[in-house]
């Protein structure tokens, strides 16, 4: 559900620009039909679901809504989701910048392979991603026996949830930065180095300011996905109530138990996150465009 909402501004924009062009070229009947189809599509697939989530969540009144959120299971799910997002987004921030830096600024053997690998989490079903961690850390898994003999719990515990989320959300930061850094080239870095700046200083004073908006954008998308991830987390979580349920998992559990209001109350928080992400994304897109320096006159 979250994903549909994130995609919507693009669809809206496209629909508007199509309508604007048609204003001057197409007869009103064609215009009317096209606009009608677009509006209907958006209403049914984007606007209506969003309204329904909130109306369902508030159907028994604000008091019930707040009580559903203050429930101990709900609070623990919110807490776990936040912790998971903070850890996996921080990890992907570091890995993403490092990977993008390597791909965009250097030539080396196996670069194409690395770029393909970065995309892997996007092309693999999240369920498979989860299963990989079961195979690695499960009781019969590759590291399982060793971990068990040392009393380390990864699977069906917080570490596996963080790992699965990190894996699934890995491409966001790197994907956002690679084209940006490739377009900017490495001449500014070369200039800084030849003026006597160290590698680290060059990164902090020259590279980072140039990519900051793109980086923030990547982090934002990464965070939205990290909080909304269901498939991979569902496989490795073990669904221990009050312990290993994230918000998306809790939504499903509550729904299956016919606790519709509570389920939609949690869902409404995720929807709210999506809306905030959207707003921030729009602002950032403007900043990224402004930050581009035209190369020549």
């Amino acid at each position, binding site marked *: 559900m979250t994903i549909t909402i994130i995609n919507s501004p693009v669809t809206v924009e496209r629909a508007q620009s199509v309508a604007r062009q048609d204003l001057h070229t197409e007869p009103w009947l064609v215009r009317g039909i096209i606009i009608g189809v677009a509006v209907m599509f958006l209403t049914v697939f984007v606007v209506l679901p969003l309204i329904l989530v909130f109306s369902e969540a508030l159907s028994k009144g604000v008091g019930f809504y707040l009580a559903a959120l203050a429930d101990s299971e709900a609070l623990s799910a919110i807490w776990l989701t936040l912790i998971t997002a903070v850890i996996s987004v921080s990890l992907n921030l570091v890995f993403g910048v490092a990977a993008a830096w390597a791909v965009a600024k250097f030539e080396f053997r196996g670069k194409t392979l690395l770029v393909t690998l970065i995309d892997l989490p996007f092309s693999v079903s999240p369920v498979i991603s989860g299963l990989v961690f079961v195979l690695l850390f499960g009781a019969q898994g590759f590291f399982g026996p060793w971990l068990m003999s040392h009393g380390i719990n990864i699977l069906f515990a917080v570490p596996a949830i963080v790992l699965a989320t990190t894996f699934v959300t890995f491409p966001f930061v790197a994907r956002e930065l690679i084209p940006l850094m490739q377009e900017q080239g490495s*001449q*500014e870095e*070369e*200039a*800084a*180095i*030849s*003026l*006597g*700046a*160290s590698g680290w*200083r060059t990164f902090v*004073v*020259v590279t980072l*300011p*140039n990519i900051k908006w793109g980086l923030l954008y990547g982090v934002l998308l990464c965070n939205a996905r990290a909080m909304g991830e269901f498939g991979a987390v569902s496989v490795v979580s073990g669904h221990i109530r009050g312990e290993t349920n994230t918000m998306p998992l809790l939504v499903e559990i509550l729904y299956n138990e016919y606790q519709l209001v509570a389920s939609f109350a949690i869902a409404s928080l995720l929807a709210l996150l999506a809306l905030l992400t959207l707003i921030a994304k729009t602002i950032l897109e403007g900043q990224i465009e402004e*930050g581009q*320096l*035209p*190369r*020549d*006159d």
Partner: protein
Amino acid sequence: MTIEVRNIVKQYGAFKALDNVDLRVADGELLALLGPSGSGKTSLLRIIAGLDWPDAGEVSFDGENALARGAGERHVGFVFQHYALFRHMSVFENVAFGLRVQPRAVRKSEAQIRARVKELLDLVQLDWLANRYPSQLSGGQRQRIALARALAIEPRILLLDEPFGALDAKVRKELRQWLRTLHEEIHVTSIFVTHDQEEALEVANRVVVMDKGKIEQIGTPGDVYDNPATAFVHSFIGESIVLPVDVSGGQVKLGHRPLNIDAGGAVGPSKLFVRRHDMQIGPVGEGALEGTVRRVRTFGPIQRADIALSGDDTLVEIDAPRDRPLTAGDAISLQPRRYRIFAGQE
């Protein structure tokens, strides 16, 4: 500071960018590396700067091995074709960058840095732009700021990679003149890369002509124009008429026609190079070549004519003074006043 480059080899996959290059640059010289794209001139410049490393060979500054030092320790000012100004820093901060990143022990005080930046902005005549950002400047202004930034660290060597390549013709001409004057003022050993022969001949003390990773000729601008060492230099610098000839027994033949000119040591299939303005026009029977005027255009003091040579109708373009007017259809003879014959047909 003298620069000495010895046996430099640089290979990108199967492509040999530099093939055993030797070069000596004297102290205070303004040297141009001239060649078509892919000739290796930029690779050579980047190796001297420390932005690239050779596969083999040596680079030394004043006899000291430069390859043992990183780019930042060579005290080389580098100016990029696309300026490479730090886009999020003001003009002032761009120029101050090299001073601010110096190790704490030798770093100047804030007041000294301000004074030095002011001095440099005065030098490039852009002190009024100190608070602007690179995106607010014109191309010519950006390149002058880039130069001020490179000069801030008091470089021992100044390297410029196609410094005027991205500018329009008028600004390019102004900056060329300005660079010349600036070099006379500060006298730092400088190398600039260009593919524009006019720029190289006009600005540099010495020109290095490169092709396919090799140095074809090193000489003064007059030298490389008047006494090209190879067929490549002759055809790359200045406009030339090129005719395939055959030399045997000291006799030069174009097709079956003997030309009665000196072969100058070439033997076998060769090429005859003549500058367009070095062809003397005369009445039929009085020159090495004969032909018919096809078309005439006049540009100020000269007339340019297309001449179809008798025999195989090869079209050559010549420049002649206007005191002997040519008209289409005239039968004339051509005698090369100055020419070069280089053996080989490629």
